[in-house]
């Protein structure tokens, strides 16, 4: 009964989404304020009914209602309640319902928080969001209904959730990622609304900036969580694989980061307007492309759920409508000139332009590497995959240049800055960059390594330029007393840039200095890896709530023979109809290094295949991701977003 209620609520929500798309639009076109104003209750109503629908499905999962096909195939009575709930989105249908819920959530957030928007603008934005919602409602109702029952053959027991997904990482990763993905629909809707109204001005940039930042921060955190989850849960110590689906989340992040920065220019200087609109369209289109890649199962990927060509064609058609429609509107309405304001080569505009060019080129190389297999296969030239070396080759130079620009950018003034003052500010950062670049490889590893020197040097460069920027700001505003007055937006930028430095250093150094070995070990054997000695003590049988496992116990000693850590790695066998075996790694985390052991398989005569890792700086990757998210969050508290009515005059 509750399940049918959920289905019914979803159909009602679809009706409200239709009204949300049509009524405000008619209101704007006809000039009927009441219709335009209806966008707000319609958006909230849609969210309410989608939420009811979501709650009904969650109820079915929590009460083990195996008459619902989705529950029967993805849950199990033995599953802890927490995972029963997250099993809802560990599959195609449920994750699409989560997607819809979040979309409706963003929509009603715009309706409720955007009270200061002109009523027509809000109506336009909500109408566009309503159209997107209609598309996704149709997708769920027509191709991916999560409420299907399997009468009369109700199974006694569910088939269980894939053990890889029974983890806190899965509880949090998809909702965060979707908050980001779907959040860019707000930036997209603002861009389309601005094109539609023909008023692509600084006010538009000011309105859409906080929404873009919010989406971006969730996406940053979502990607970080995904990487962390892959690292400890997949059991083999990798943190990024250039897997098509990872790329699918990374591309909107790159485009969204560019959008964030170009909106800053639009807001402050009225420049880059049509470029920012194009980026907003691009970012959301890439989110949809990601959905298409994951849902169609067209690419080989760990994330691919069971495939269904019908779903793939639906999303592809929807993508075509969204991209085609928005680009047509763009072609018709984009402003022809950026206005009279110019800027010199040594200005913040120029640095942000460099940021945009580099990020978009990076996005394009990822897009190319991700879609090449599809193109080659469509042209019937065979089946290919693009290896990680391609992406690494592209990213090292691009990210290095980005880091250089990122150091200089915040030190530059809008319009024009003097070369002499820049040189004065950059002298110390340049010197520290050089010294650290040369010193780091020798002090850390005892020998030269160009990649490590580059990574360390750029990290020092970013840190030193941020300090230089802070000093300059304080000097201009009258010394240390000005410290509390620098504003949340400034601190947000600093924190996010520090986060980028951490991630870059983590990615570079862990790739260079990580050490791993696959060895055959019996109880009592030891293996030395760099400065650490891993000893295999014993294996023991242990039972978990829904699995049984062989647990290997290891101790790790450092050079001087002190015991550093005791590690437990497990090989789990889940008691479900899927009969899944899973590796649970033993990890000793640390700020400067992780020690990591995973059990392969037993290979007769009591010995096991074992993989041991020493992974320096790997945690910096995720510290950086979290800092980037925190930086984004900080900027949302900036004064200018709290009192949008007190608008700054535009120079």
């Amino acid at each position, binding site marked *: 009964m509750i399940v049918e209620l959920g289905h019914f609520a979803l159909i009602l929500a679809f009706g409200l989404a239709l009204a949300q798309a049509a009524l405000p639009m008619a209101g704007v076109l006809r000039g009927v304020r009441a219709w335009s104003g209806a966008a707000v209750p319609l958006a909230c109503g849609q969210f309410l009914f989608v939420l009811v629908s979501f709650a009904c499905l969650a109820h079915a999962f929590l009460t083990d209602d195996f008459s619902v096909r989705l529950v029967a195939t993805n849950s199990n009575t033995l599953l802890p309640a927490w995972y029963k709930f997250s099993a809802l989105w560990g599959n195609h249908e449920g994750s699409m319902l989560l997607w819809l819920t979040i979309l409706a959530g963003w929509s009603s957030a715009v309706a409720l928080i955007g009270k200061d928007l002109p009523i027509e603008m809000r109506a336009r934005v909500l109408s566009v969001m309503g159209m997107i919602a209609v598309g996704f409602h149709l997708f769920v109702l027509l191709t991916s209904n999560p409420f299907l029952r399997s009468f009369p053959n109700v199974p006694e027991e569910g088939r269980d959730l894939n053990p890889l997904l029974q983890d806190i990482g899965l509880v949090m990763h998809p909702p965060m990622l979707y908050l980001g993905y779907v959040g860019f629909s707000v930036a997209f809707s603002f861009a389309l609304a601005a094109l539609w109204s023909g008023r692509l001005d600084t006010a538009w940039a000011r309105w859409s900036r906080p929404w873009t930042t919010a989406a971006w921060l969730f996406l940053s955190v979502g990607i970080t969580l995904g990487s962390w989850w892959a690292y400890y849960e997949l059991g083999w110590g990798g943190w990024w694989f250039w897997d098509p689906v990872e790329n699918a989340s990374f591309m909107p992040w790159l485009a969204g980061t560019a959008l964030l920065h170009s909106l800053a220019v639009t807001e402050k200087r009225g420049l880059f307007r049509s470029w920012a609109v194009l980026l907003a369209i691009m970012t959301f289109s890439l989110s949809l492309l990601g959905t298409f890649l994951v849902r169609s199962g067209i690419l*080989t990927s*760990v994330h691919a759920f069971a495939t269904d060509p019908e779903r793939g064609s639906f999303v592809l058609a929807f993508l075509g409508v969204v991209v085609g429609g928005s680009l047509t509107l763009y072609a018709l309405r984009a402003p022809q000139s950026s206005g009279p304001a110019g800027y010199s080569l040594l200005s913040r505009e120029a640095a942000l332009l460099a940021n945009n060019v580099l990020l978009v080129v990076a996005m394009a190389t990822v897009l190319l590497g991700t879609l090449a297999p599809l193109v080659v296969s469509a042209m019937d030239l*065979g*089946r290919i*995959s*693009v*290896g990680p070396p*391609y992406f690494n080759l592209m990213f090292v130079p691009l990210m290095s240049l980005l880091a250089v620009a990122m150091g200089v950018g915040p030190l530059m003034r809008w319009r024009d800055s003097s070369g002499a003052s820049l040189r004065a500010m950059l002298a110390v950062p340049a010197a520290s960059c050089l010294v650290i670049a040369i010193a780091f490889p020798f002090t850390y590893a005892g020998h030269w390594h160009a990649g490590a020197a580059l990574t360390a040097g750029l990290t020092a460069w970013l840190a030193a330029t941020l300090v230089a920027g802070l000093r300059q700001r304080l000097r201009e505003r009258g010394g240390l007393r000005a410290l509390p007055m620098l504003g949340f937006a400034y601190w947000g930028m600093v924190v996010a840039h520090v986060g980028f430095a951490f991630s870059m250093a983590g990615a570079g150094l862990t790739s260079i200095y990580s050490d791993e070995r696959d060895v055959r070990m019996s109880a009592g054997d030891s293996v030395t890896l760099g400065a650490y000695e891993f000893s295999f003590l014993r294996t023991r049988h242990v039972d978990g709530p829904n699995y049984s496992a062989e647990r290997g116990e290891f101790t790790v000693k450092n050079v001087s023979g002190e015991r550093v850590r005791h590690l437990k790695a497990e090989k789990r066998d889940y008691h479900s109809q899927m009969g899944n*075996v899973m590796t649970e790694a033993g990890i000793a985390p640390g700020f400067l290094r992780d020690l990591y052991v995973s059990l392969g398989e037993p*290979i007769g005569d009591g010995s096991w295949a074992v993989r041991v890792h020493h992974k320096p700086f790997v945690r910096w990757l995720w510290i950086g991701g979290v800092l980037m998210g925190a930086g984004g969050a900080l900027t949302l508290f900036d004064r200018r977003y709290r009192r949008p009515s007190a608008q700054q005059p535009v120079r």
Partner: protein
Amino acid sequence: MHPVRRQRLMIVAFIVVGASAAAALIFRALSENMNFFYPPAQIAAGEAPEGRTIRIGGLVVPGSLKRAESGLDLEFRVTDNKADLQVDFRGILPDLFAEGKGVVAVGELLPNGRFKADQVLAKHDENYMPPEVHEALKKGADPGVALGGGARNDR
């Protein structure tokens, strides 16, 4: 030529040269890192290049997995029901590697006709099968063998 025009021409030329150089480098990098997929039948027919990274895939022949006395060397055979391919691997097999199930391996073909795998990928869940393997098996179809496997990257 007018100095402003000359400057503009320089800028345009710079952009064109820069963009084409970048595009050339990107496509070169891409073509060098494209790994083609070959089913065992194509390898048996001598269509696959030696000494280049390629991917192969099919079903693991039941009973073909053999391990060395010491160390982590092992070998198994992969079939698409038309031809078999001998695969050598040193390391840890993915959790869901199983005889009779679908598998994909990345590595290179040796002159002696064996395949040296650097990476072995096996099934992700039972509904999922890498499209390549599915296609390879369909081509070499044998009604007796069910397409039950799937794949997962060994991460």
